[in-house]
């Protein structure tokens, strides 16, 4: 068999391919549900209900979608320029660390600044921390040719150990009875809730506006053009005068900043302090979301609500029918692979010969 490039691909196919691929994945995953000995229809109904079926379920899903949206955007801008940033997990944690360092109540009180100013300072330092963490690997790639995949991956482990170190020492909450958690954020710095009696917070609006901003940046600015050119063909981009290193650095700063913000917003919106298990792999899921969204910033919003829904829905479904929650991870990972294949088939046709 071989693949032949299609002359035209219908815009309908581009929208329907991912939906069909996810439906196919759910069909195949039904085998796993049967293996776990649960009725397929009821399991999926509970999964959907737990994800989107009530105001509470939807609020939990949106709460979970906020960090995923941000790490998804971080992966989108980086992958668009072929900077394979697998380190969003680490960048998220340094962002959270910076947020607590600036906005935490050390010695019982915080920095003596007006809350508004302090909030901006906190978010900026989180973005900066994430950006700087990715700057190293990006420069090593641009200057020395060191593969950024490996360096960003390894940095995730280093950052987690650094967080553990800080939680044992300088940032330890003395009132936490030996539980490894940081000092709490000052109350004034916490994000307000969007819907009373739920956990969904104004970080959602921040994430949504960042998605729109990134879309506009990619579509309407010179930097956006350079990023797309670099991703489409690095050599052609260099020939036509795209400043390769400078664009790569800008992409790294953007991507790292978005992931760093994910950490700060998670602390300010949900946990109010930093723990070692704050992120169940949001950084890695961000890559999946970016790919599900075909690297389109606005589609990232949809993809993150889908992935968050699977994770949240699986929790309540698992309590009811006993199918392990890992089914959500299987569905998400299998969706990634099937969406990749389906998208390819919209651009290529298979010739058997």
């Amino acid at each position, binding site marked *: 068999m071989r693949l032949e490039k299609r002359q035209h691909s219908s815009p309908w196919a581009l929208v329907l391919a991912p939906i069909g691929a996810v439906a196919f994945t759910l069909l195949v995953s039904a085998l796993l549900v049967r293996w776990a000995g649960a009725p397929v229809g009821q399991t999926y109904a509970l999964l959907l209900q737990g994800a989107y079926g009530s105001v509470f379920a939807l609020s939990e899903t949106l709460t979970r979608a906020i960090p995923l949206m941000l790490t998804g955007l971080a992966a989108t801008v980086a992958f668009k320029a072929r900077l394979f940033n697998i380190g969003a997990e680490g960048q998220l944690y340094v962002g959270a660390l910076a947020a607590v360092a600036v906005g935490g109540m050390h010695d019982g009180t915080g920095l003596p600044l007006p809350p508004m100013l302090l909030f901006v300072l906190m978010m900026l330092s989180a973005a900066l921390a994430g950006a700087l963490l990715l700057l190293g690997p990006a420069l090593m790639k641009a200057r020395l040719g060191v593969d950024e*995949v490996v360096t960003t991956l390894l940095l995730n*482990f*280093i950052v987690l150990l650094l967080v553990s170190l800080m939680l044992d*020492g300088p940032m330890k909450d003395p009132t936490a009875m030996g539980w490894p958690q940081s000092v709490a954020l000052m109350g004034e710095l916490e994000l307000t809730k969007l819907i009373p009696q739920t956990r969904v917070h104004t970080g959602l609006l921040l994430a949504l506006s960042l998605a729109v901003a990134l879309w506009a940046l990619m579509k309407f600015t010179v930097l956006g053009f350079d990023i797309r050119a670099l991703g489409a063909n690095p050599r052609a981009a260099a020939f036509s005068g795209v400043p390769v290193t400078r664009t790569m650095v800008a992409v790294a700063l953007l991507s790292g900043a978005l992931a760093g913000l994910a950490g700060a917003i998670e602390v300010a919106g949900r946990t109010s302090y930093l723990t070692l298990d704050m992120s169940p792999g949001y950084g890695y899921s961000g890559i999946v979301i970016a790919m599900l969204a075909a690297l389109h910033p606005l589609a990232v919003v949809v993809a993150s609500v889908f992935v968050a829904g699977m994770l949240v829905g699986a929790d309540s479904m698992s309590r009811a029918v006993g199918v392990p929650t*890992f089914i959500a991870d299987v569905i998400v990972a299998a969706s990634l692979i099937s969406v990749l294949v389906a998208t390819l088939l919209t651009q290529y046709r298979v010739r058997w010969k």
Partner: protein
Amino acid sequence: MSEFVDILSNPAFWVAVLRIATPLILGTLGVLLCERAGVLNLGIEGIMVAGAFTGWLAVYAGAGLWGGVLVAALTGAVLGLLHAFLTVVLALSQHVSGLGITLLATALSYFGYRVSFPKVSTPPTITPFQEMDWLVLPILAEQTPLTLLALASVPVVAYILYRTPVGLAVRMVGENPHAAEGQGVSVVGVRTGAIVLGSAFMGVAGCFLTLSAFNAFFFNMVNGRGWICVALVVFASWRPGKALLGALLFAFFDALQLRLQQSGAAVLPYQMYLMLPYVLSILALVLVARKASYPQALMKPYRKGER
């Protein structure tokens, strides 16, 4: 200073070094085979988890220990076949496909474990490989047969790569697939074969953890070892002998930080010692970067008739 001498003069330290190095040697050889054929395989982390799980499950279900190793290798091979289909036949992004395989294999293994053992609080155990007391060599006698297998695999892989027509074909499709195709070598076939074999190595690397180093399956037990192997291959400049050296060096520092933590000499927080191997890996990558000779076609998808 005498602290160091004490640690280094203790044979138990060197036994630990070789034990820690074993899965890294196997995994690094696996990555090396894939990359020599021009394909990055970030599926390794998940393939190791799957190998650890299925190998252990087979033994738990009554298969022999070598049966478990075979099952782990087959698991790796099947996942490798999927990676080959996505990256070689369909020419999709090697990064994304590999990460997808890691996520899928990990999720499937954890799901399978939970379905098989829904209510256990302590993980069920098996009788793992025993030390090779019959071997008269010091240090090696205190290892399990899988370590011997790993060490023996290094010259075998090197021989295949540099001294056989198959190895030449693997290196050709990794350097210049267009020229290889011109010579009548099937790029798709050779790359698929290399990925399947390499992934089988990764599966065996994973089952070392459950069948030799420990006797049970835990969540997060692979814990980044797969990613370390990806780094070690770059450090080794894609050469099997240097891969062995790199794995031993990494294991040396890992064992050293463990001992330093345990001994009273630990003046720094334990996290600093744990960071050491990762920091050294990055440093090593920077140091070798200038003279690293990447396989020329690495990460470049190949579609017949397309430039």
